[in-house]
Each structure stands twice: as C-alpha cells, then as structure tokens.
C-alpha cells in the first residue's frame, strides 16, 4: 500500500447484545488511540441504515481508506458492510470485522474481562486491516438447469415448479418409481383426502413434463463444481428391462418362477412380489424391474430351462445384457429431497415388535388400511394363532421420538396426527372396535389439526396419557402394561393388535449425500440448513438447497411449502444466469511452488490443478487455482510445505500481525 492507512473503527452495541457485557465506550476510546485510527465510533446498530451512513460519511469526509467493524460474526453482516464500503467508493475488501458478539459478549459474563477481550479483538482487526489488499469479485455464467435428488412429494413439487418456470430439471430417484413415502400412505390428515388421488397426477406430471428428465432407479455418483456450474454424474442402474419396449402389462411378473416369494418394499413387507416386479400399480414410470439380487438368472446364470419372463414378454423387453449406465450433465443448482426412514421399533424391544406379528408400525398400518394394500383395505391380522379382525386396538405414540434412550430427542411432528387418522379409519372400518391411544402429549399444532383431534375423540376413541412400559402375550391377546399418569393408576390392557406410532429418522444412507455435497448435520442428524430461521432451505454449500424430511420431520403441507421455497431459491441463480465468484481465493507463488500436488489432493473443491510452466528454460509443474471453484477455505495453504499457496486476505503476513496483537510475540 502506497497511501498512508486511515482507519475508521466502528463498534456496535447490537442493542444490548454487546453493550450489556462489553463497555463499548471504553473500547471506542481504546480504538481511537490505536495507530492509524482516524476515527472510532460506537452506535446502537451498526448494520442499520443510520449506522451504515456513519461509515459512508466518514469514508467520504475523513478520507478513510480502511474500515474495521466490531460487531457480530462476519457470516452475519460482512456482506452488509462490504456493500457500504463499495457504495462510499472504497474497495469492499478493505473491511475487517472483529467479532465481539458471538466470540465475546455472548460467551462471557464478566464485563471487565469481556471489555478487555473486545479491545484485543479490535486491536487485532486494526493490525490486519492495514495489510489488506484490494480485491475484485467476478461473475460467471450459471447453467440454466437444476438437479433434484429424490422424487418423493418434495422432489416432485420442486421439480415441477422449476420446470414450470422454464428451466430444465434432472429428477433423480433411487427406487424404481417416483412417489416416495407419500405414495405408501392411505388417507392424509386432517382432511382425509386420499394420498394416492392427490399424488398420482403429480407423479405423472413430473414424468411427462417437457422440461423434466426423470432418472428413476438411478443414483447420483459424483458432484463436482460449484453454484451455477455443478458437474453431475448419475448412475442409471440396469433394470434388465428395456423401458422403451416395456408396456407395463405385468405378464412377466405373473410368470416369474419366484412370483410372490419376496416381501414387497412398498407394502412394508406385508405384501409379496417376485424377482421381476412393479413396486405398486400406480408406479411412475410404469415399467417393470428385475431385482438383480433375487433373480435366478442373474444370480445363478440359470432359471429353469430358460427365464419364463422372457417368454411371457410379448414386447421382447427383457434384456439380461443391460448394464449400468453413467449419465453426465451440468446444472446450476441442486435440490436435496432425499426424505427419511421410519424408526425401526426393534430398537425398543419392550414393545415386542420383533416377536409378535400383531404389533405393527404406523407405516405398516397405512398399507393395511389402504384399498391398494395387500389386504385390499380390510384390517385383518395374524395374532400368532389365527387370522382375525381385531376388535381391541391400541396405538402407542412417540415410538422412537422424544426418546433419549434411542438417541432421538426430537418430536417427529407427524405421529400424533397420523395416529388420530388411523384410529379414525379403524373406527370407520370396524365400528364396534375399542380403540385406545397411549400418548405423552398430543401435539395438534397445524391447520385443522386440533379440530380433527377433537373429532376423533368424539368418535369414541379413548386417549390415555401414559407411556407403556411393556407388551407381552397372554393367551391369544397382547397385554400392555402402562400407568395412566392422569389418575396415577397402573393398568393392564388386553388387546388384539398394537400399532406403534414410529417416528421419523434421517435416512440410513444420508452419509453418502453428505459426502457428495459437503453438507452438515444438525444434532438430530438431519441435514443442516444455513440458518434455522432466515435461510431454512439453503445449506452451507452455495447452490445446494433442502426440501422435505431430509432437513427434519414434517408433514405433507410443510414439505410441499418447503419444496416450493427451495425451488424458488434454486431458481435465483438459474433465472439470473450469473453467479458471483468470491474474490477471497487462494493464490500460488509459482516461483517457489515445487509442484508436489499436495494442494491438488487436499482441495475439497477440486479447484487446483498442476500446470507446466517454463522456469528458466526448464519445464516444471506448478499449482494453479481455478478462481471460480476456490472457496478460499485455506486447506491448501495448511498443507503446503513450501508455503507457496495462500488465500488472499488471509496470507501469513496479514494474519500474523493479527495474532501478534492478540498476544503473540511477533
């Protein structure tokens, strides 16, 4: 820097967030005395309009060329103050923030000590800001397409919205059909409309939309690049059925030698399927799939005298030679809608789910009451001795939710209402049934929920407050041991059937998505949003958005609302056609770089490559940074033995004086 540094230091009260713990006047006085500081001020809210105006006016009137703002985390307001600098004609990267809120006032109680620490943090920022360099951010084109991972209701809705806005969508679904969990449900609470009736048209729309390319039975393998320019590789798994020929007639499945031998995933194992199957009648695409782990021909190379499905298929669609296929494409935004798993009640052995066939989960109950389910909607169950129509039915709530013993402290938000709905359906189908619901609290918070809960109770369903301790068998009945906590009475309830209202859990394969997209998890293990209140659909990875239960348990209306929100966010880079590239990227000193390639391996964003340069007549390899990909994380710098790569604004010579001011020696 050739010009003499002229610093302005601005200390924010953040209402009482900072001012209650830190003596802002004392910090201001201290800052005023620091070298090169022209003006130090404090103000109630620096981020407010008048606060920013203070900075802008000082830049203009006092000729400031560097600004320190001591307030909150730069994650919160760095963009705000950079913009203020820019509007006053100063390079926006001449700003340094001292975090005296999250890293000081919020975590300390002793006012004197907190004030002393705030002074140090300000002195450190002052030491660094003088050494900052002017940087210019750039823009690159964004690919006008989006990837949606998961085609449940969240993924389908988001894909439809983005496609309707005129952009190409690649909709990737792991299983053979779109529809997800919602397709498995019978009726939806609290309005009792049929889940399939409202979902099926959307499934068909998603498959037939001219802007949507549906990749069912496919998995995302690789994601590279960055917002606006993601490079995606998807594995289309072999169905061993030529989808262009398959008419969905089902002749193959009838003939399969293993027909009816395997539990059908869609019916939660209550129904059976063969090795070639359609998951459910309304599946989209309505194409058959051969299960490669079950099919005799694929596992043993032999199926009787020849696979019967091949003979049965008049379209000649069966193709045992089919191979997995890798599809590559570029997108500008990625929407994650990978959904949830239901809690496995085997982890609550006291409820006997593993041993008693008449203890079932809520999702199994959905299939049992569904007209398209394995029993055609008749509630019949095997009690271990015979098939019966249960007359005494109990529901147990909060199985695997609000339960520290299984590691799930959270409320799954849907179980209270789906239990009420299922209790209603039982009463509807078996009018003389006695139905009890064992609950801890009933959470009927949504639109129409409380009304529905009232209606169900008026229908004669008894709610008993108590968390059952044990279920065991007596004769052909199940006995529930429970204490009615409202009357403090221990009870034993003999029933024919128990439905466990299992909660929602993060998917077992969530780790793969986390690694693919560099996502984080919140303590409940669901995917973490960028900000719980103000950026609920964004993630820490720019250009990657969340929708539905992968972010946390929610019901269908909330899922659809979030999907629409995520779609709107994903549309921002797509519609704008450009994305800004941060200027704080790593830079290589090609004169000292020895081309070892450590940084290339380390870089989590694949932003560095080795290039050959001419050094005094010798062709040598050195690292080079792709500024569009670099996030300025500094991992490369930590791994560089010759210190030849450093992030701008965080160079050693910039941060060492900062560390020294905090109490270092150099």
């Amino acid at each position, binding site marked *: 820097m050739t010009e003499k540094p002229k610093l302005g230091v601005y200390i924010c009260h953040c209402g009482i967030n900072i001012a209650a713990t830190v003596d802002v006047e004392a910090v201001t006085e201290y800052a005023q005395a620091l070298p090169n500081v022209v003006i130090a001020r404090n103000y109630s809210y620096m981020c407010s309009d008048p606060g920013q105006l203070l900075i802008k006016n000082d830049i203009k009137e006092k000729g400031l060329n560097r600004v320190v703002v001591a307030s909150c985390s730069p994650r919160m307001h760095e963009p705000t103050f950079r913009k203020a600098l820019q509007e006053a004609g100063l390079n926006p990267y001449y700003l340094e923030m001292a975090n005296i809120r999250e890293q000081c006032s919020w975590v300390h109680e002793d006012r004197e000590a907190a004030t002393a620490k705030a002074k140090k943090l300000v002195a450190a920022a002052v030491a660094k800001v003088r050494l900052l360099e002017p940087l210019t951010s750039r823009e690159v084109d964004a690919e006008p397409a989006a990837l949606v991972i998961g085609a449940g209701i969240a993924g389908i809705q988001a894909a439809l919205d983005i496609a309707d806005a005129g952009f190409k969508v690649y909709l990737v679904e792991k299983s053979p059909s779109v529809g997800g969990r919602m397709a498995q449900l019978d009726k939806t609470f609290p309005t009792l409309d049929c889940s399939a009736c409202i979902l099926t048209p959307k499934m068909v729309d998603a498959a037939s939309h001219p802007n949507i390319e549906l990749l069912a039975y496919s998995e995302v393998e690789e994601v590279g690049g960055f917002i606006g320019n993601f490079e995606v590789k998807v594995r289309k798994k072999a169905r061993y059925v030529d989808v262009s020929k398959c008419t969905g007639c089902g002749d193959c499945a009838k003939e399969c030698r293993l027909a009816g031998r395997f539990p059908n995933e869609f019916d939660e194992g209550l129904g059976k399927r063969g090795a070639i199957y359609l998951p459910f009648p309304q599946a989209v695409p309505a194409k058959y799939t051969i299960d490669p782990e079950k099919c005799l021909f694929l596992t043993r190379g032999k199926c009787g005298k020849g696979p019967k499905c091949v003979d049965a298929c008049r379209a000649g669609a069966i193709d045992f030679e089919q191979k997995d296929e890798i599809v590559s494409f570029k997108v500008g935004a990625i929407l994650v809608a990978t959904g949830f798993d239901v809690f496995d009640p085997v982890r609550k052995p006291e409820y006997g789910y593993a041993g008693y066939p008449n203890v079932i989960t809520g999702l199994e109950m959905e299939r049992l009451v569904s007209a398209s389910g394995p029993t055609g909607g008749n509630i019949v169950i095997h009690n271990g001795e015979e098939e019966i129509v249960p007359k005494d039915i109990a529901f147990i709530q909060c199985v695997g939710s609000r339960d520290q013993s299984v590691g799930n402290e959270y409320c799954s938000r849907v179980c209270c209402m789906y239990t009420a709905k299922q209790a209603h359906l039982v009463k509807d189908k078996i009018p003389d049934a006695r139905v009890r619901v064992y609950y801890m609290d009933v959470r009927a918070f949504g639109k129409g929920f409380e009304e529905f809960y009232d209606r169900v109770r008026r229908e004669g369903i008894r709610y008993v407050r108590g968390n059952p301790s044990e279920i065991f068998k007596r004769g052909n009945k199940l006995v529930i041991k429970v204490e009615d906590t409202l009357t403090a009475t221990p009870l034993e309830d003999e029933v024919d059937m128990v439905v466990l209202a299992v909660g929602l859990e993060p998917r077992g394969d969530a780790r793969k998505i986390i*690694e693919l997209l560099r996502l984080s998890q919140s303590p409940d293990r669901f995917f973490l949003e960028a900000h719980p209140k103000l950026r609920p659909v964004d993630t820490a990875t720019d250009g990657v958005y969340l929708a539905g239960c992968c972010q946390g348990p929610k019901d269908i209306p909330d899922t659809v609302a979030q999907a629409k929100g995520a779609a709107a966010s994903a549309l921002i880079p797509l519609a704008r056609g450009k994305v800004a590239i941060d200027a704080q990227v790593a830079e290589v000193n090609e*004169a*000292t770089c*020895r*081309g*070892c*390639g*450590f*940084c*290339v*391996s*380390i870089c989590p964003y694949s932003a560095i490559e*080795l290039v050959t340069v001419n*050094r*005094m*007549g*010798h*062709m040598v*390899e050195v690292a080079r940074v792709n500024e569009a990909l670099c996030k300025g994380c500094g991992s490369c710098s930590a*791994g560089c*033995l*010759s*210190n030849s790569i450093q992030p701008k604004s965080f160079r*050693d*010579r910039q941060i*060492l004086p900062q560390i020294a001011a905090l109490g270092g020696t*150099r």
Partner: protein
Amino acid sequence: MDLNKLRETAAGIVSRDDVKYLIGWRRGTFGYRAAPYFVEDAAGVEELIFSPLCISNLAAYLTLVEKLPVPRGQEPDQRKVALLVKGCDSRAVNQLLVEKGIKRDQLVVVGLPCPGMVDWKLLAEKYPETEAPVEISWKGDDFLLLYNGQEIVVPRAEALAEKCRLCRHPNPLISDVTVGEPVQPWAPAEDSGVAEVEAKSTPERWAYWEEQFSKCIRCYSCRNACPLCYCEDCILDRLDPTWVNRAVNFSENTAFHLARAFHLAGRCIECGECERVCPAGIPLGKLNRKLAHTVREEYGFEPGLDPEAEPFQASYKPEDPEEFIL
C-alpha cells in the same frame, strides 16, 4: 556381493546415450569412509563399490542438482540419472515420485538388496580409524574387516547400524535392474531409542530435547542430507514472515527442528541420514522415527512403499483418528 556384476551393469547403463551419469559409492580417502561417486563413463565403473560402508542415501542428489538457467535457444539436458539404491534408499525414491519431486522417466534405478550396513563409529571403538582406507565386506551374517592387513570377523550385532537393526525393507521396493539376490528380511529390533524418550515424563523429555537442541549449530546438514527436504526455497529461510530467526539459540533451534519434523511426518522414510550427518550428535532419528511410528500405528501408513500412493499429508479419510492429537 558380486562387484564385477555391479560394475558390468553400471557400465552398460552409463554407456547409454540417454543416461547422464550414475550415482554410486566409491572407497573414501581414509578409514571407514565411502564417498558418493558420480560415474560419467564406462571407464569410471572400476572404482564403484557396494560394501557395508555404503550407508549414505544417494537419493538426496536427485533433488540437490541445481537447475541452472538454460541459455536461450538451447534445450535443457533431459538425460536420465541412474542411481544405486538400497532398500531404505528406494523408499526415498518412491516418496519423491509420490510427491512429484522427480519424474520416473528421468530415472534409472539400480536396486541393491542390502544385508545391513555398519556404523563405523561402533567399529572405531575397538578398531580405531586408520589413515589407510579399511575394506569391509559381508561374511555370512557378519562383517569381515581387512584391518592393517589383517582379516577380522566382526559379529553382526557389534557393528550393525541402528537404522539397519530397525530395518523392515532391506530389499529395494523400486528398481529397473537389481544386482544380487534378494536378502531375507530380519526381524526388526524394538526401537529402544524412541522408547527411551517416550518413557520420560514431560518435563524430563523437555529437558532432554533442550539439551539436544542447544547443541545445534544450525549448519543445516540434516536438511541438506535429507532426501525429502528439497524445497528450492525453504520456508525456514524466508524473511517475510520470519518463521525462524537466524539466531542460534535453543528457542530458534527448537523451532527449526520441530518444523522440519512436522514437515517430514508421513514422508520420512527413516534412512537416518539426518542423524548420521549431524556434527553435533543430535539424535534427530528419534524425533523423526517417533512421528513415523505414530503415522504407521494410527493411520496404517508407511511412506515410500508405493510410488502410486496418495501423499499422506494430503489425504483425508473421515475415519482418520484424531483423539491422540494434543
């Protein structure tokens, strides 16, 4: 060791048009010394030796060669360099390949299975150095000394160098040609040097290293002899920022040695050159081997075994342990 076979192979290699020179050893000018030797033509191979005195790791010369500016209009010399390697030396070559310090196609590696080297300082206690060069060869498991015209058999345990006692890879792990039959690896000894320091309490350990590092005269021999310390512009020499000051004192010496040790973690192939060349007798091997042990035990990684390996310091696995770090 069939020296004729070695010389014949070497002559064949240096006669090739695409080979610049071969780096090997020859007899030193006195006592127990063997000297690095650059053979440029077939006639030069007569002086080439491979004996229990050839302890030095010649791989360091691959990167020590200064790349002088090439005059305009001329092409840089692209001829290959041939190098004699023992098992330990070959690991340095592999590690250099992993970190792109050298190119495979610019190298001819002559592998020499190694039965173990002597530490001449151990020999000199009983048989002091003489003005005339002493000849040593392998005899079975032991060493045969030709000392003042007298043949003396020295039992292996009396003279084997420390790094050879700990050796797990006596046969070269990379080579274009091998001279001699592979040797049977022996059971590596317990690393008593490291164990001894580990057994100390923290204050004792600090006192130990304070004593050791205080001896350092910062001649940088360790850095120069190390085959894997080869940055053209070492960060410990830089002025902005100055990580290590020029002053030779305990504090700066410690900073120098610790920085070097950390830079070598997961890269050090335990050839022991740093300690061997130290004129102040600082047991640098203990420091580097301690880190090598940690890398091996905690991460299951040993550098220099595979030229295609991912560089340890630049690879990350989510299941990497971290609880032992501070």
